[in-house]
């Protein structure tokens, strides 16, 4: 790539009046996290000064919440989408920790999926899972569902679990 995107980022930060104090922080961050030019490819989509201003503010937030290299790279991608979708100051809510901020950004970027997962989670919570089992609802890539943990000590335990699971299956079928 002939264009040095890290340099471009610093120039845009310096151009922005609101970020005069932030430019050196961004320069330090680029160096300490060993950010490569290719990591900043998403910025090639930016068309306006506002896009850049929001992006630079996002980098300062990443610094503030002490995001790791891989967390930063993922967030850069997410935040680029959100900036281009027209989000602005609402991006910078829930920044008390990286995880809180990441959750907030995820909810902004994937609202329909968040809603669908919440509904599914609620539905799964009402199912008659085996007594003593542990369930954990989670998303794995394009699928969301329940991870089920059971502890079995005998054939009798197994029969009970299987019987419970049959009831779960029946309720799933009925709903």
């Amino acid at each position, binding site marked *: 790539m002939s264009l040095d995107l890290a340099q471009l980022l610093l120039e845009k930060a310096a151009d922005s009046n609101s970020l005069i104090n932030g430019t050196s922080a961004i320069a330090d961050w680029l160096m300490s996290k060993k950010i490569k030019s290719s990591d900043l490819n998403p910025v090639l989509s930016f068309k306006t000064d506002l896009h850049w201003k929001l992006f630079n503010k996002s980098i300062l937030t990443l610094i503030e919440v002490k995001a790791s290299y891989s967390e930063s790279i993922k967030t850069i991608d997410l935040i680029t989408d959100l900036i281009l979708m027209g989000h602005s100051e609402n991006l910078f809510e829930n920044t008390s920790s990286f995880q809180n901020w990441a959750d907030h950004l995820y909810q902004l970027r994937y609202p329909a999926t968040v809603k669908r997962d919440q509904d599914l989670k609620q539905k799964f919570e009402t199912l008659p899972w085996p007594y003593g089992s542990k369930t954990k609802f989670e998303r794995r890539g394009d*699928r*969301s569902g329940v991870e089920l943990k059971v502890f079995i000590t005998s054939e009798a335990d197994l029969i009970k679990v299987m019987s419970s699971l049959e009831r779960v299956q029946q309720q799933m079928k009925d709903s």
Partner: protein
Amino acid sequence: MALPEFKKIYIDQVSNDSDVAANVRRLYPKEIIEIVPSDFINKHRGSMTADEFNLSKKTLLLTEFKGQFFKRCPGATQKKTLTCCNYHVLNLGSQCNMNCSYCYLQSYLNTKMSLIYTNIDHALAELKLMMTEFPNHPFRVGTGEVIDSLSLDEITLYSRKLIEFFKPQTNWTLEFKTKSDKVDQFIDLKGQKNIVVSWSINPTYVINKEEHGTARLHERISAAKKCRDQGYQLAFHIDPMIYHEGWKNNYSELIDEITSTFTPEEVGIISIGTLRYQPEQRHMMRERFGLDSLVTQAEMFPSEGNKLRYDAHLRAEMLQFVYRRLKSKNEKWNAFFCMETPETWISSLEKIPMQIPEIKDMFKPLPVVRQVEVNEGK
């Protein structure tokens, strides 16, 4: 649709005497045509920026292809994760003069111009060898994998050669796959059942927003009617289905239009697929189309085979909706899911393809295509 627009056309010196070069000279102004040495292409390889990708659609090189033309569909390379329908491809060029926001070529091509291979005789010789070896196997061969089958056909007229070539080989099926309406260049040739002309279709709303420079839905359907009337088998690919507000109404209207215009006997197959793309394609799409597109805005997640796809529940709902709508019109409509996982088949239809009588033959394994040596002297 007008003649494809190119700002510059290069002709590799080895292709200078080809029929395609003669057609180019007849159709385009000489000021934009330049003869180049055969190593010219080597200077134009490599990954592309968004601007380079845009320019590659407006720059054409006529050259010869040195590799194997006839291959399995990329779906076959992911047999462990995807249910594959045994499609084979014959690549007679690369890049597309149309501009769909979701096009997978954005992460696939590494040549900074559109290519048309002028040595089609070599491709046909390869096919002849395979046909001689496997005359009774029902190979389905498509020419629209890395180039639209028909959008540049006024320049190549390859459709005419391919139709005549496949006519005697009735166990083998040829499929032209297009988003154009360019059929007039071969429509004087009588069709038959093993020559399929197919269209990728989407509701008008999606075409207007995402399929730039393509024929409008009514133009595709008019072209399909012409082919039907001339005896060609038709197929439609409702692929990629794109989620949007009102998707159910829009896809219902699309299916109603198809099922009220054609019969299941005229349309051999309808494939259905949902939006999917390689993760690395995201940057290019975002840069080229911004976030106004339904595709770049979509909520996509990593899936089996590493592609980004819609949430599996949503995907199953979309596929099931279209499949059921089709079947509700007439049980005889043959439909299958393209490049989908067995889990999606089961969650949508409670069956895998081998359990569906009308399509199971498509999914039976075929002999593996091997490298064939074509002796040009014979």
